[in-house]
């Protein structure tokens, strides 16, 4: 066994997994990783099941130390991280596993162009509650005592000494300019005829009111058809639902979003693009593009095919621990080789 201690949790670090299914009818959202693909890759890099609990570091700033044993970890996403060993800080590349030993400290300084990065730990222990370890703080579910990680918290994981390190040689490509695809409805008919075109045709800015529940957007206001169209008899929402309250500015619901609501929903973000939107930062601009339901279903299948291809590309790092292709930043090489010599 290995033991890790959270030294500083950063803005919002929480344990997440594939999410809690089956309880939306009693008001419990899925929660779970904002970017399931990052969770799946990180878990596979350390030898876990794809949907095992991971640490989602939202907003950067996580610092954790290994107190006992050896822990195999992997970061995925646009992570800026350091390994502190014997008083020396070296950069730590994402998209590969690495074994930390007692005394080592991992610091996630930032999440680059994204809102969050994912940290998997081999054999991370977090018992499921209502079928999932995903933290949903509002109802105190999952995680450690139902809350985001706190300074001083201890996590148990597998002892990882002596296993081969793994690497994803070609990390997922990103296109931050690509539009976010949406399907019109369920209440597009509550808006005036121009609203849908305006929504899909203009830039929106992600405001500071953005978290795991949802994100408020700023941009062209969307007019409801009439005063009576500003509210509906509450019906079910899903992750990706785009609510438009009376002020006309859209709110996209995410993993922790409420399960029902009384604002009309002009459109729904397709599942293939929701993680990409969820990871955008306040101030970022996004543009939406309309697709049909069957196009959206095809996009979901294509995204899964791509993720499976990425997972199949995970391979042993090699005996010498040096993988020039993975160390895509040239000046990392010295540090990472250093960090790679626990044995």
């Amino acid at each position, binding site marked *: 066994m290995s033991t890790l201690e959270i030294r500083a949790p950063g803005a919002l670090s929480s344990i997440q997994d594939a999410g809690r299914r089956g309880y939306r009818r009693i008001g419990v959202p899925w929660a779970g990783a904002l970017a399931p693909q990052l969770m799946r890759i990180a878990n596979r890099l350390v030898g876990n099941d794809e949907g095992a609990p991971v640490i989602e570091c939202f907003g950067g700033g996580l610092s954790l130390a290994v107190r006992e044993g050896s822990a195999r970890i992997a970061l995925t996403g646009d992570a800026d991280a350091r390994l502190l060993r014997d008083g020396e800080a070296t950069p730590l590349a994402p998209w590969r596993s690495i074994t930390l030993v007692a005394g080592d400290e991992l610091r996630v300084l930032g999440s680059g162009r994204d809102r969050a990065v994912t940290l998997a730990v081999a054999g991370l222990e977090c018992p499921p509650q*209502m079928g999932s370890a995903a933290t949903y703080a509002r109802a105190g579910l999952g995680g450690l005592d139902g809350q985001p990680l706190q300074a001083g918290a201890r996590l148990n994981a597998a002892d990882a000494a002596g296993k081969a390190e793994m690497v994803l040689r070609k990390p997922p490509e990103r296109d931050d300019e690509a539009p976010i695809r949406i399907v019109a409805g369920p209440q597009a008919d509550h808006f005036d005829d121009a609203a849908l075109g305006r929504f899909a045709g203009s830039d929106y800015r992600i405001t500071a009111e953005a978290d795991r529940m949802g994100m408020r957007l700023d941009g062209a206001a969307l007019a409801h058809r009439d005063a009576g169209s500003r509210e509906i008899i509450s019906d*079910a929402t899903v992750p990706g639902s785009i609510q438009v309250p009376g002020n006309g500015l859209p709110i996209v619901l995410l993993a922790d979003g409420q399960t029902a609501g009384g604002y009309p929903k002009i459109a729904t973000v397709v599942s293939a693009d929701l993680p990409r939107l969820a990871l955008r930062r306040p101030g970022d601009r996004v543009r939406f593009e309309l697709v049909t339901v069957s196009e959206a279903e095809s996009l979901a299948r294509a995204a899964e095919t791509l993720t499976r291809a990425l997972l199949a590309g995970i391979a042993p790092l090699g005996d010498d621990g040096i993988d020039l292709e993975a160390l895509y930043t040239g000046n990392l090489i010295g540090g990472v080789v250093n960090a790679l010599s626990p044995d």
Partner: protein
Amino acid sequence: MTPRMLDCGDTAFTVEFGNLISPALLAAVNALDAAILRHRDDPALAGIIETVPTFRSLTVIYDPLATSREILESALARLLEESGDAAAPEGRQWRLPVCYGGEYGPDLEHVAAASGLAVDELCACHAGAEYAVYMLGFLPGFPFMGELPPSLQLPRRSEPRVRVPAGSVAIATGLTAIYPWESPGGWHLLGRCPAPLFDASRAAPALLAAGDRVSFEPIDEATFVSLSADCEAGRIDPQRWCITGAERS
């Protein structure tokens, strides 16, 4: 009754039976929900992750890698034909304690003024009516209940509160509810209920279920404080406030 099929992206669609809150629409929603549950082993329904019944519609959430909207819509069309309106499930009856007014019910006097009732009359009117639990949602265990007596029906607050304390008993439009958790909210706050509405350690985490019937019993502040402490410490079982029907868990 031919429902409308509303698009909710590539992982869900909503079967909408109408546009009002009525027992007939609720029955249609529950009938389809029950039919899906009954036929869950039917290969045509494979890939449904969960269903979410609300006042007037059923949202079907599915895995687009395992099925498609087209497959599910035709399977549901068959179920809609064969499923009549299911009898409403036999709900339990509850009498839940509420401490009205003061810091617990900051909108009590405003609502009294707006409805032309004395504060005492308002409390008696709200507590004495019997409400059906129409659906749970918005927050874990949050019960949407109605129908509120007509004299108490007001629009939502124009300025939602950033913070509504857990346990708050609230009204808006034709509905009343209890906030199980602290959250933002736009309803009018009349009082506070000490019963824990959601506990993940219970077999049925939500205390109330759709179909249950609820009325309220006014309590004073000292009783509220004492009951809250007892609930928090696990010294009392909230089932004590269930006055009919077997415990489901």
